[in-house]
């Protein structure tokens, strides 16, 4: 017994086909709506669907795609198999669930939300759960989990449910079979959601960009957006301010008012689909130890800092203290003029230090934003499973840490290069932007075991601009005399 056309339908196995219309999945469709459409058209039982497509087919728990559910952001559906059976390219499911976005932006995804008009057209996107979107970018409808009389969730509706999906208990149809068959295409919606998706993927894929404190559930999206915009401007990246963002004071991040610092950036994981789905447990487990990276990058930071002080500045490092004690822009300009090349180089080191600590929030970032490793086809992982051992995967992690250190170091050094190029531009708003910091441990030798605490203290000092100690006051008056002499 055979069926025609075998090759054109969704193909499950040699002799059986599923009902699907290949190519009917709009861009940015969520996995939830795709699964619901599949369930409507094929009417499988929960057991049959679980056996075919779920990662854990024997799990008794309800099948939920909720990123904040007990299963976390791990996708319960075997996407590769699902896409093969549907004859859809795997790329179709690139933005299908929260787990496919960079980890840095996961806190900004809320509960399930849908646009009733889009749902009627057979479309839903996980981007509707993004905190930055309150209304549907096309229909303007308020995004909510309540459709008609029912409250929808991320759980997949299977046949054990008493009512058929797509029909409200009041009888109203909010997803018809015709829409499930072929959702209505909407280029305007694709453009709008594409902008949001690209911004999210891009924001999270830069290792220097991340929310200051991801474990905190109350992290502000506005602050994050501003931070991303600021760093994007610094990195000369396009679309710094997304159109959807409610950033009230965008001029704050105008390129003319901030220090433009080219930062070496490295795509570690996220937007590049090739970097996802390593399947290596030991790589994923690396997330659980963010503090492991803190010491590593701090060590690099300190090493570069030490090199700059001893080899780049040399005797000129005394200017750092003088800059730190300068009370206003005029004083700094006077010092730069009087000090010549040595002073300008010290000023560059100060810019670099200040940017790393304050603008990039190095200490916060290092404790909260761990590297995530992925594999790229064609590039060997340097280690393989045979090198694993029961005593902590030492050899594998050593390689990864080595790479991480180099990535960090390259970024920090790239920062320094640009700061050194910009040191000849006194008098601009950069001075106001940077404020006056007192790099306590830059002036004297640091103590390796207490570096984090020292930096944190130094950071606190630079925030307390008006609070000066008696020693500082003495130093300031000395600087004032020196400036008068220079003028």
């Amino acid at each position, binding site marked *: 017994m055979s069926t025609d056309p*075998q090759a054109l*339908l969704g193909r499950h196995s040699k002799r059986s*086909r599923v009902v699907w219309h290949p190519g009917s999945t709009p861009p940015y469709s969520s996995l939830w709506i795709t699964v619901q459409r599949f369930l409507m058209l094929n009417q499988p039982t929960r057991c049959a669907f679980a056996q075919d497509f779920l990662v854990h087919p024997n799990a008794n728990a309800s099948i939920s795609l909720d990123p904040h559910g007990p299963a976390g952001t791990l996708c319960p559906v075997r996407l590769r198999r699902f896409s093969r059976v549907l004859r859809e390219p795997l790329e179709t499911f690139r933005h299908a669930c929260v787990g496919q976005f960079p980890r840095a932006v996961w806190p900004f995804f809320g509960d399930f939300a849908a646009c009733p008009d889009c749902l009627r057209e057979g479309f839903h996107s996980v981007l509707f759960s993004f905190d930055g979107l309150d209304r549907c970018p096309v229909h303007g409808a308020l995004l909510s989990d309540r459709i008609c009389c029912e409250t929808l969730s991320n759980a997949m509706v299977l046949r054990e449910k008493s009512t058929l999906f797509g029909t409200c208990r009041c009888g109203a149809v909010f997803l018809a*079979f015709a829409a499930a068959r072929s959702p209505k295409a909407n280029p305007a919606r694709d453009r709008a959601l594409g902008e949001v998706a690209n911004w999210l993927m891009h924001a999270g894929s830069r290792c220097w960009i991340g929310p200051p404190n991801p474990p905190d559930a109350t992290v502000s999206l506005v602050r994050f957006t501003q931070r991303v915009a600021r760093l994007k401007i610094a990195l000369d990246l396009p679309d710094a301010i997304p159109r959807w963002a409610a950033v009230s004071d965008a001029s704050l991040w105008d390129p003319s008012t901030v220090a433009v610092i080219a930062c070496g950036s490295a795509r570690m994981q996220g937007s590049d689909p090739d970097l996802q789905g390593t399947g290596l447990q030991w790589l994923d487990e690396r997330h659980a130890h963010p503090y492991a990276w803190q010491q590593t990058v701090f060590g690099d930071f300190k090493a570069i800092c030490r090199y700059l002080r001893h080899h780049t500045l040399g005797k000129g490092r005394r200017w750092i203290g003088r800059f730190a004690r300068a009370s206003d822009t005029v004083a700094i300009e006077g010092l730069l003029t009087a000090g010549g090349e040595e002073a300008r180089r010290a000023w560059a080191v100060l810019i670099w230090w200040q940017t790393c600590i304050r603008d990039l929030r190095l200490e916060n970032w290092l404790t909260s934003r761990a590297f995530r490793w992925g594999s790229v086809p064609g590039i060997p992982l340097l280690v393989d499973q045979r090198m694993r051992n029961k005593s902590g995967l030492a050899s594998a992690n050593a390689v990864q840490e080595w790479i991480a250190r180099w990535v960090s170091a390259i970024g920090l050094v790239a920062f320094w290069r640009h700061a050194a190029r910009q040191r000849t531009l006194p008098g601009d708003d950069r001075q106001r932007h940077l404020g006056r910091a007192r790099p306590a441990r830059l002036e004297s030798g640091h103590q390796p075991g207490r570096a984090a605490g020292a930096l944190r203290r130094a950071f606190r000092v630079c925030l307390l601009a008006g609070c000066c100690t008696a020693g500082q006051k003495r130093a300031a008056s000395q600087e004032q005399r020196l400036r008068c002499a220079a003028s």
Partner: protein
Amino acid sequence: MRSSLPLHLNPGHPVLRQEYAVFTPPVHAMAQTIGDWIDQRQPGGYIHGPSRFGKSRGVKWHLKSVLQDRFAKRIPLHIWSRPAESHVNEGEFWVSLGIAAGVRYAPTRATRGDRRRQLTEFLIASAAACGSNFAALLIDEAQAMTFREWNWLLGLQNAMDWEGYRLSVFSIASHQMDYTYELLGQSDHAHVAARFMVAHWPFPGIGSAEEVEFVLRGYDEASEWPAGSGTCYLAHFIPEAYARGARLTPCAGTLWRVLQALLPAHYKGDAEFPMQHIAWAVEEIMVCAARGDAWEDATGEARWIDALAQTQFTDHMRLISAAMSRKKSASSP
């Protein structure tokens, strides 16, 4: 299963496994008829003919490719061989149809409405995959279809029509189908008969020496195994004799005479012969030749008579003759 085959014969050869069908003029005519019905978007049509004439084999092996050649694209044609047992309920009916069509979740637990919806969506998807709004369902062994089953199919056709897709239901049956049409027409199911059985076509047997020659040429030239090898069926059985020029085609006249001679006395039907008996006879001749019999001896008239006699050819034609006489008496006023 045949005993003591020569070593050069591959037991997996389709002729030895009887998993093949030589293209015949009646199969070509059937494909053309169905193609015409598809062109006309007929809601239904039925093809009837005596058993063993090669209807099912033609559908299985050649119909789709002929239609594809004619329309220059894939035709969403789903073939269902109706099982002998009747379906107790509508759910079983849809499951049987779904399994035949290859629906992945056809056997799963569902209500009859869901199953009908499932099959409807499958047919719609197959039609859309071919870039049209038309799908065809071909029912083999349709003589066993019940009134209720015809009504369920009518509902399926209506459901697809509501969605904007057309479903044609073609049925192939033995000669009993002739009476089903009249029975449906005279009972309360005239609408079913009008929908599915108005268009009809009698499937003929092999009816002339030329057609026999066409069939034998299939073994000589128009066949190939393994695929792409360029070796026809006869060449596989007798490679050396084939290289010397031995062919089955010149035996067409002999075979035709033998077929006519073996007809039962007082045979009332037309001189049309079942393809299956001809195929069995040809297979026997080929195997005998492969075992070492001289080609001229193996294809002599006596050997053809023996080969056909082993297939109970005369008894089968006697049954057809009896059915013909019943049909004529039923149709006479």
